């Protein structure tokens, strides 16, 4: 499977960004690399979608941004979860897990379902 071609399901990028920030503030580049490393290079976030997503989340008040210095002393914009963002992440994770479990159940089915009884 060509990992760079892996398309994000709609909305899943947001939850990944939120998740990436639970350990502390990060700048955009660090978020991409964090997601890449956690997914063992399976998920490559495109810059063209990452930054608009970050700004959108900031706009919604789920993230807040602050200018700071990066590891090699460059001025970088750091994002941090707001309490609202943290709450959002918890909900999204729950939804995501339920969804994934449901999809997994269907995909792992080995025989057609029993016909539904009509009362």
């Amino acid at each position, binding site marked *: 499977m060509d990992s760079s071609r892996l398309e994000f399901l709609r909305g899943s990028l947001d939850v990944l960004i939120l998740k990436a920030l639970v350990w502390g503030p990060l700048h955009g580049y660090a978020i991409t690399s964090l997601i890449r490393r956690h997914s063992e290079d399976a998920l490559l976030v495109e810059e063209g979608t990452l930054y608009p997503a970050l700004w*959108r989340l900031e706009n919604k008040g789920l993230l807040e941004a602050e200018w700071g210095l990066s590891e090699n002393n460059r001025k970088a914009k750091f994002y941090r979860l707001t309490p609202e963002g943290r709450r959002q992440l918890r909900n999204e994770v729950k939804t995501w897990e339920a969804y994934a479990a449901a999809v997994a159940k269907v995909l792992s089915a080995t025989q057609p379902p029993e016909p539904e009884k009509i009362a």
Partner: protein
Amino acid sequence: MTSLPMWRRYARFFGADPGADVKDELRFHLDAKTDDLISQGWTPSEARREAERQFGDLKGVQKIGTQMGQRMERRKRFSDYGRDVRQDIHYTFRTLSRDPGFAAVSILILALAIGANIAVFSVVNTLLLRPLPFPNSHELVWIAPPPTGCGLSCATYSADAYEEFRDQSRAYQGVTGYEAFTTPDNFRLAGRGEPQPATGIEVVANFFQVLGVRPDMGRLFTPEESRGPHPVALLTNAYWRRQFASDPSIVGKAIELSGTPFTVIGVLPDAFDFGAVFSPGAKVDLFVPLDLDRERMWGNIVTLIGRLKPGVTVAQALDDANRVAPNIYFNTKYPQTLGRYKGNLIPGSLKDYVTGKLRRSLIALWCAVGAILLIAGVNLSNLLLARAAARAKEFAVRGALGASRGRIVRQLLMESLVLSGFGALLGLGLAFAVVRWLAHQGSVALPLLSALRIDGQAMGWTVLIAISTAMIFGLLPGLRIASGNLNDILKDSGAGAGLGRKHERLRAALVISEIALACMLLVSAGLLLQSFLRVLDVDLGFQPEHAASINVEYDDSAPNNEASIAKRSEIFQQVLERVSTIPGVEAAGIADYLPLGPNRDWDTPVPQGKTFVPGQYPDPLVYVITPGFIRAMGIHLRGRDFTWADGPHSERVVMINVSAARTYWPGEDAVGKILMRDKEEDHVVAVVDDVREESVEQRTAAQIYYPAIQQGPSSAHLVVRSSLPPATLGPSVLRALRELNPNQPAAEFQPIRTIVDRAVSPRRFFMLLVAAFAGLGLALAALGIYGVISYSVTQKTQEIGVRMALGATAGRVQRDVTLGTLRLAGWGIIVGTIASLASVRLIASLLFSTSPWDATTYFGMLLLLLVVALLSGYLPAKRASSIHPMVALRNQ
């Protein structure tokens, strides 16, 4: 993440720049990526290229970022502003609650001023600005001769003239009219317990159609109901509710009116108030169709009201009327009466007829409350200034902590907005009460008063004046404070110095303008009061005290005129004999019309031996009276009163008033002379004083009195003169009348004084209002003086202390403070007098035999102002003189 070093935080010193932010953020991303690639072994230039390739559409992302950033910036600024406002409000409430006395006084001042403004606005709106309560009311015109001395009796036309005018005019959708000489309680409603008096107006059948009034129930009159007798009636809504208990099936029922059964054909809507429009202060119960055929024999009795065709102007209607007038007969049977109305058919807007006379009074009233608002505003400004001076330090500290001047001004504006907001709320409450009270003043003869209410427009006006008051008077202290030098204030110790001098000058100027405004109000009120007193002093020509009248029901119907006269003579003599025997009654008499009410004229008598030239002799107002009436009314008479011997077969006799005598026989004694009416000779037996006719304030033209048994009276008002109060006398008079005629309705026994009071009620109403406003203005000005003097005493405590320590006496100190007060009052009075002299022209036309430059009034009012000023300066002066030098110096 490491924090940015201090110097780098200034990168956005000149405000946020979302575009640059996005560029920086993305550049950092590319740099970091390039670094990573280099560390993986790429050459720097290739690494850079690769990073850019991987990024893709850099420009596109940048654009999205800039847009989103700008949107966010805007939102942030907006929410910052909202937070600031919330903070300001919160802070305002905290400061105001720390000084509840100040808040209460300011809110009260504003409430009084704003309340007066709303109430007067409602009156002005109802009477002047709002259209009359009829659909397309701008099309309605009142047709009358040019204004002359004789009021309604000239503004009427004969039945023939009405029909000719209606048929020949081309300007109107419809022309209608009503019988103008209805007296109150002209009907007797019987068959429902005790007979009840009722007031009914005879209207031309198309009256309601022309006005555009639709019945709530039933139908309106039809055109043929104005030809010949048709006993049908329309009830007003109020009468239907009161007298018939809102009977839902009243339509079609018969009611007995003055002995004739009438069929109720409909009930009019509640919104239609005849009295409010055409006859202020009068209450009307029902309408019956005017029988034009019967009225043809009478004189001018119909008013003319027309509804113009759409698009026709009043000027065009006038041209049309001038074209038609020469072709109109007074009575088509008499060719010589052709053209009698030439130049006497002038259409004018109905609205002007109803309220035009009040325009000046109302504008004056509006100016008066405007002045009140100004005084209140200046007062508020003054109070805020004094507070601002005391709070100078607080603002300086806030300024030093980074609050911008704009922010501080905004804070002060917010305070005045909150104050005026509360003031407006309270004022609205006051105005509601006042307007409710006014709307129920049935005894004030002002049109449309019953339609008075506080509507959306009045609310809008409230908001407008509340905000503009706050803006104008909050801004001044705000700018004052904001322009102060923070440093100076912070260095200054205590409440003393700093803004002191400049401030005091400004406050003195404000107080002077307050006094000047109050002075103008007082002078106007004084002049109006003077006029009112002069009006009360007018020689009415009769003595209203100790006389009262009651409407007498009688039935003189008979097969012929002679029998009718005989019957009437007997009834009237019986009534007067009975009433005269009641203990306490000094005189009694009957007349068909009373002074200060509507009246009519009949024709144009000419002195014997002179020839009639049209326009040379007046059409005198006619009274048909019994012997005794002149004495009962207290009219002064020279000659002899009528007697019961002046009957149908004896010599015809008349009395004329002084004005008539002067016109007919200038320089001669009229008693014994003869007036000719066509072939009929009327012997003048007496000359009586002029009796005020249309209004107390207008001179009276010619009047003529006929005996009730030589001419036909149209009704009977019994006038009784007695020193007993009407309340005690009334029941015995009514009992006497009932004994003679069981049908006599329980009519009101009305003191003649109340007729006079009603006639002067509009003037009293305006005078009282202006006087109340002047009083309010004076009180506010006094408060302003007190505030300023008291403040300056507080500020000068040390100075006074030093002076007293150096030997100044308490009296000396007190004199100085009083002199300060006098100086303020003096300047205020000078400015106010000049302004009054210049502006008094506005109310000159409202005055009655009072010069707008009446020295007594000016002097009296200025003296009053001076005394009040001195009184309000007295307390602070007293306080200043009791300052103990040691205490003052120690308090430093």
